[in-house]
């Protein structure tokens, strides 16, 4: 085992946080009944916000388009319940601050828009037509970063994609949404992947899955054979952040995305399994992204579940369905424990990038006051990007941003490995984010 | 500033060693015994006062461009006088102070005061300044030497001042002890000044 492990391809650095996936990995996806009110922010993706095309009082059905994108790097949002638009106003957003949101009161009928129809001839569509449908469906990466999918699928002609990677690594502890999705909807995922391959025409394709999900590996292998896709299902060693794009590419192809570059610079493109399935829905069923699988977990939730949740559902609604939170729950997080964002307000809505709702108890969160750096070097060993987090931390905190840039703060992927292993509990990722933000602001100022 | 003020400022407020951090090399070198400290202090004060007086006297007709060489000649003259007199009249002290007497020439306190003060002030003020600075330097040396000699050798001015079984802390009369002591004294003074401010 030890030998085979060391011979397997991997990336440098990384950590082994406690997985805690056993809480939900055997729980089939349950459908969460829609809430009475959904709150749909006009921006749930990276890029330009979309503009509302409905007004208060309008009645909408599931899948009705609520906004128009305002640029190429922008996608629309859709109604996720049928009912009446109650308000268009700023509401709390899980990524912080308040964002213009469309509030819909459900009428309980749950009727779908007429536009959502199966297209039996979808496979004969051209690549551009497929991209259009993907965009119309409001697709943005569902792994968490929420980059508009159609943009990713339109590589510039000088950057040909020869390798496509389907990301089923799900390296974040606790989360099992992708795992369950692969077990229960393998075929739809592979069908979605087939469409991606049709659009991109790469030379090779991989499906990367961490080997703590061997059942999913088997199921996906079967599905690949059934659907008839030329793709290799690879079981990857469990190591965080295996699912990070650059690390996944390195582990599967040995290629290193250059600093400041994108996967397409080395001819690669990565999509999350959830996105692949949504692509299938968008192209074959003309069905916009209105719901997604969310793992509601953590020992602060009474019953941990995998739920199919409508976009715009308040976290509190999902938590109530899971029996509420325990007395000693202290932290509410959107996403996984490593990269997720702590929430202050449980009324924030589920958005397209919400892979999990995590409630941690005091014991799990192990909240401790930060100490001082003893230069143990664990963060340097853990950093999958080869950075020196503790050095960056002190540079940023002394406002020596230019040096921080020289030391590679912009290369940080904020995976949290450094802060995880830090015995002094320094808020290293926080410093990286601050440094990146400050440098970004300066670059903007400089034009 | 009053003429008296010119004198007193050198003792603490503008102490050449502790406040201006001038002349640290001889300070570190000869503060290992009180005897050396007194001898060096007296020699320095003499040179300081005399060079200040002369520099102040001739400041009227010394061209700006060659003032430094002239100051050096003046200072070197007095240092040589001190060196010769010491060798003639106090050979033990001369031996103990060794190379540091001739090196008074390049002691930045003297050139510093000539340039910063005596070159632009009256004779009386320059005299007072030289006296004050010399006294300040001597006091600084004394403070350091007291710590170093008592701790490092168990004596004060050569007289034993220690209890039975006391084992001198050798490092104090070695060069590292000089750095340690001056560092701690400076730290204490800064702490004191900040507390009063």
């Amino acid at each position: 085992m030890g030998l085979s492990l060391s011979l397997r391809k991997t990336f440098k650095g990384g950590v082994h946080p406690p997985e805690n996936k056993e809480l939900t990995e055997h729980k089939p996806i349950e459908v969460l009944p829609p809430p009475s009110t959904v709150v749909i922010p006009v921006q749930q993706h990276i890029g330009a916000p979309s503009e509302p095309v409905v007004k208060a009082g309008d009645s909408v059905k599931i899948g009705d388009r609520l906004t128009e994108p305002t640029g190429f790097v922008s996608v629309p949002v859709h109604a996720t319940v049928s009912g009446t638009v109650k308000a268009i106003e700023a509401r709390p957003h899980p990524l912080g601050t308040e964002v213009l949101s469309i509030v819909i009161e459900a009428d309980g009928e749950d009727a779908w828009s007429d536009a959502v129809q199966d297209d039996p001839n979808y496979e004969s569509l051209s690549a551009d037509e497929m991209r259009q449908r993907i965009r119309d469906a409001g697709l943005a990466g569902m792994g968490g970063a929420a980059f508009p999918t159609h943009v990713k699928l339109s590589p510039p002609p000088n950057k040909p994609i020869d390798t496509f990677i389907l990301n089923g690594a799900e390296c974040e502890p606790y989360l099992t949404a992708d795992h369950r999705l692969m077990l229960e909807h393998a075929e739809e995922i592979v069908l979605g992947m087939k469409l991606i391959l049709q659009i991109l025409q790469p030379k090779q394709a991989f499906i990367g899955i961490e080997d703590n999900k061997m059942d999913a590996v088997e199921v996906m292998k079967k599905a690949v054979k059934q659907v008839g896709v030329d793709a290799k299902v690879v079981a990857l060693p469990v190591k965080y952040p295996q699912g990070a794009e650059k690390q996944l590419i390195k582990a599967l192809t040995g290629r290193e995305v250059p600093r400041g570059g994108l996967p397409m610079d080395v001819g690669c493109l990565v999509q999350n399994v959830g996105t692949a399935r949504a692509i299938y829905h968008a192209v074959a069923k003309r069905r916009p992204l209105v719901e997604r699988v969310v793992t509601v977990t953590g020992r602060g939730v009474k019953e941990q579940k995998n739920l199919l949740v409508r976009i715009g559902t308040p976290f509190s609604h999902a938590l109530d369905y899971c029996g509420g939170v325990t007395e000693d729950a202290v932290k509410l997080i959107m996403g996984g424990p490593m990269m997720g964002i702590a929430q202050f307000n449980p009324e924030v809505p589920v958005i397209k990038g919400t892979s999990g709702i995590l409630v941690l108890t005091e014991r799990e969160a192990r909240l401790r006051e930060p100490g001082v750096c003893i230069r143990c070097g664990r963060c340097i060993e853990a950093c999958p990007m080869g950075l020196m987090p503790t050095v960056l931390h002190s540079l940023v905190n002394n406002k020596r941003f230019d040096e921080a840039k020289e030391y590679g703060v912009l290369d940080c992927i904020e995976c949290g490995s450094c802060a995880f292993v830090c015995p002094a509990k320094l808020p290293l990722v926080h410093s990286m984010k601050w440094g990146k933000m400050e440098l970004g602001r300066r670059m903007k100022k400089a034009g | 500033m009053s003429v008296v003020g010119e004198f007193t400022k050198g003792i603490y407020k503008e102490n050449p060693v502790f406040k201006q951090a001038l002349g640290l090399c001889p300070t570190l070198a000869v503060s290992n015994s009180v005897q050396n400290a007194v001898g060096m202090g007296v020699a320095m004060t003499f040179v300081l006062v005399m060079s200040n007086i002369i520099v102040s006297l001739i400041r009227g007709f010394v061209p700006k461009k060659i003032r430094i060489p002239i100051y050096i000649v003046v200072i070197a003259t007095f240092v040589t006088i001190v060196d010769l007199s010491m060798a003639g009249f106090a050979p033990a002290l001369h031996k103990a102070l060794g190379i540091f007497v001739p090196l008074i020439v390049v002691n930045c306190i003297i050139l510093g005061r000539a340039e910063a003060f005596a070159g632009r002030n009256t004779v009386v003020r320059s005299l007072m300044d030289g006296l004050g600075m010399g006294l300040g330097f001597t006091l600084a040396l004394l403070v350091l030497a007291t710590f170093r000699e008592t701790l490092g050798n168990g004596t004060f001015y050569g007289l034993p001042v220690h209890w039975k079984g006391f084992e001198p802390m050798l490092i104090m009369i070695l060069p590292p002890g000089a750095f340690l002591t001056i560092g701690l004294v400076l730290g204490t003074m800064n702490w004191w000044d900040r507390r009063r401010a």
Partner: protein
Amino acid sequence: MEQRMWKVSASPHLNDKESISKIMWLVAASLAPAGIGAVYFFGAHAAWVIFWAVVAAVGTEAAIQKLMGKPVTVSDGSAFVTGLLLAYNMPAESPFWLPIIGSIFAIGLGKQIFGGLGYNPMNPALLGRAFLLASWPTHMTIFKTAPHGGTISGIDVETGATPLNLLKLSQDVLRQVKINPAEVPAQKVAEATEHISKLYDAYGNLFWGKVGGCLGETSVFLLLLGAAFLLYKRYIDLRIPVSYIGTVALLTWMFGGTDGLFTGNPLFHVLAGGLILGAFFMATDMVTSPITPKGQWAFGIGCGVITVVIRLIGGYPEGVSYSILLMNLTVPLLDRWAKPTIFGGAAKK
């Protein structure tokens, strides 16, 4: 859903069980075998030296933090480790005030004056030792107590010297014979030759600890026991110890003999003196060693070179403490030089 104050902080929201105090206390634990060994070899006096050094170190840290109005953090164990290491670097028969003054200096001027844990540029315990060595050389260099269980045929304690000291003296005699045969009596030469051969045969004594020396440095076996534990816990890694010991072995083999190149005895030099203690427990001190892997290799090699230079050329028989202190000062430079390669190589233009 009831009102509740959710705690908000930056990601990640999980952290490792490791903490500074856990690391420090386990380092202390890993030093325990050597300490127990010291008490066995040198008797109760060694226990008192350890006791006073630790009490003074912890007490000084607490007192200074209290005076400065900072939170008192002696429970993190770092002052305890400093006291322990200082005691291990002292002769067993030190008078009680020696470890106390050493610890006060180590913590006060070696650590707290720089801002406390994490900010000290040099290993405080070694700084304390250097201070004591400069202040009371007699107390720090005379080893009178014969270790329990025997010595190297009695010669090391009979002359009040450590094996390294004895080697240096004997080799000095042999070198002098070469330069100026008339000046050294023949009986002296015979004695030196005999001493060297006895020393070179005494690997067992050196390994188990039956030799004179500082109380914590004598038993290589017990030190390695603790080091193995630290390696297993991954609190230290092998880069510094391997490069350090390797460099010492290589250089002493090349230059350590009196009959020309490659006539030295590397194994003797590795086992004798404080090299094992220094390489595994002091050169690896996290705060004062490089954080970059490449820097750690360079650091170990530098320590090795300086140690050998001091042992073979310098005035002291032993060079471990000074080599580590000197290399401590190069750490910022080494770390700057040894920046790891960032994923993706050079920045895209």
